[in-house]
């Protein structure tokens, strides 16, 4: 394997390099990788690519621009590290008023739900007429948590016009049948000055 003009006959696997960078390897494996890296510039160049990807992912994860299911600890940590987190926590069946400010860093919906028996849960975002805007299939769920926490893209929310979106948590069984676990309506009012990104 050739990287940056140098080659390695026994390259470290990409996944192992990532685990090394994330400090997830057992110490004996880590020692072996470090011995190799101290003699191998090809794998060193590959590690630089891993670092670059890792740093870009960290920046992206911290940007609040992704729509993703996260944990309570994640949200708390974001607030503790100085991010301005706007959070809405509707009860099942509740319709709430919401907005986003220009200086918000993260937008989070905490959807209260009992998940003790569900194996697969989808989160469906629908427009008022029932048209599905986005489906997040087979989201990770913590049965004991009592809620699903979804980070909505702050970039999208800041560009959004005044609008209503309904979140539906759906249990999906093996045959594809859906059972509604909870429905939550967000009446978003645009308060950021200037025109929205779309009408």
């Amino acid at each position: 394997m050739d990287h940056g003009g140098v080659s390695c006959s026994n390259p470290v696997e990409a996944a192992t390099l990532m685990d090394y960078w994330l400090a997830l390897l057992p110490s004996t494996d880590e020692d072996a990788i470090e011995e190799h890296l101290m003699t191998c510039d090809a794998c060193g160049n590959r590690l630089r690519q891993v670092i670059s990807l890792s740093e870009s992912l960290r920046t992206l994860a911290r940007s609040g621009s992704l729509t993703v299911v996260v944990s309570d600890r994640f949200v708390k940590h974001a607030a503790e590290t100085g991010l301005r987190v706007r959070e809405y926590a509707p009860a099942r069946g509740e319709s709430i008023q919401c907005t986003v400010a220009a200086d918000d860093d993260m937008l989070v919906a905490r959807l209260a739900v009992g998940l003790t028996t569900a194996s697969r849960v989808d989160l469906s975002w629908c427009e008022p007429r029932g048209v599905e805007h986005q489906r997040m299939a087979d989201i990770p769920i913590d049965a004991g948590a009592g809620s699903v926490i979804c980070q909505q893209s702050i970039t999208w929310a800041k560009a959004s016009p005044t609008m209503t979106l309904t979140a539906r948590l759906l249990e999906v069984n093996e045959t594809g049948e859906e059972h509604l676990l909870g429905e939550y309506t967000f009446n978003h009012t645009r308060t950021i000055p200037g025109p929205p990104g779309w009408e």
Partner: protein
Amino acid sequence: MYVGLSDADLAPRIADGDSEAEAEMCRRMGPRIRLYGLRHLRSSSAADDLVQQVLLKVIEALRAARLRESDKLAHFVLGTCRMVVVELRRSSHRQEALLAKFGGDLIPEASPTPTLDDRQLARCVQTLKERERSVVVMTFYDEHTAAETARSLGISEANVRVIRHRAMAQLRDCLGVTL
């Protein structure tokens, strides 16, 4: 002339006072030490400090012919890295006098850092499955351990590892990054 020499060939030359061999050793080892520093110190400036301090110690040892087995140069450098990182963690005291004397000569040119298209990366991350995206975001946001991520998402630690590896492979494919 020195580029083709092995690490083992460099050590005795440095002991004989060959400054070109010293320069070649620094050119070769500097970027490797810096990677070690980035991994363990998580800071570019701290990694640069580590490079200087380790090279100072290694040069001192080689000039004094204290490295008995010259083919162990890389191992010796790694051992010195580990020792200096422990020292750095124990105290923020820097070897300023030594660095003032030798520092300028001991900073290797930083190896070019590959750059990624951030927009493309965001698009690629959005194509991941929900569990994969959650694991990736929580892993990289503040470097959650697999155990923390597993607890948070109600899945096993082994599953977190499998999901993370699969997601990273997919992201590399999506970005066209060959490793």
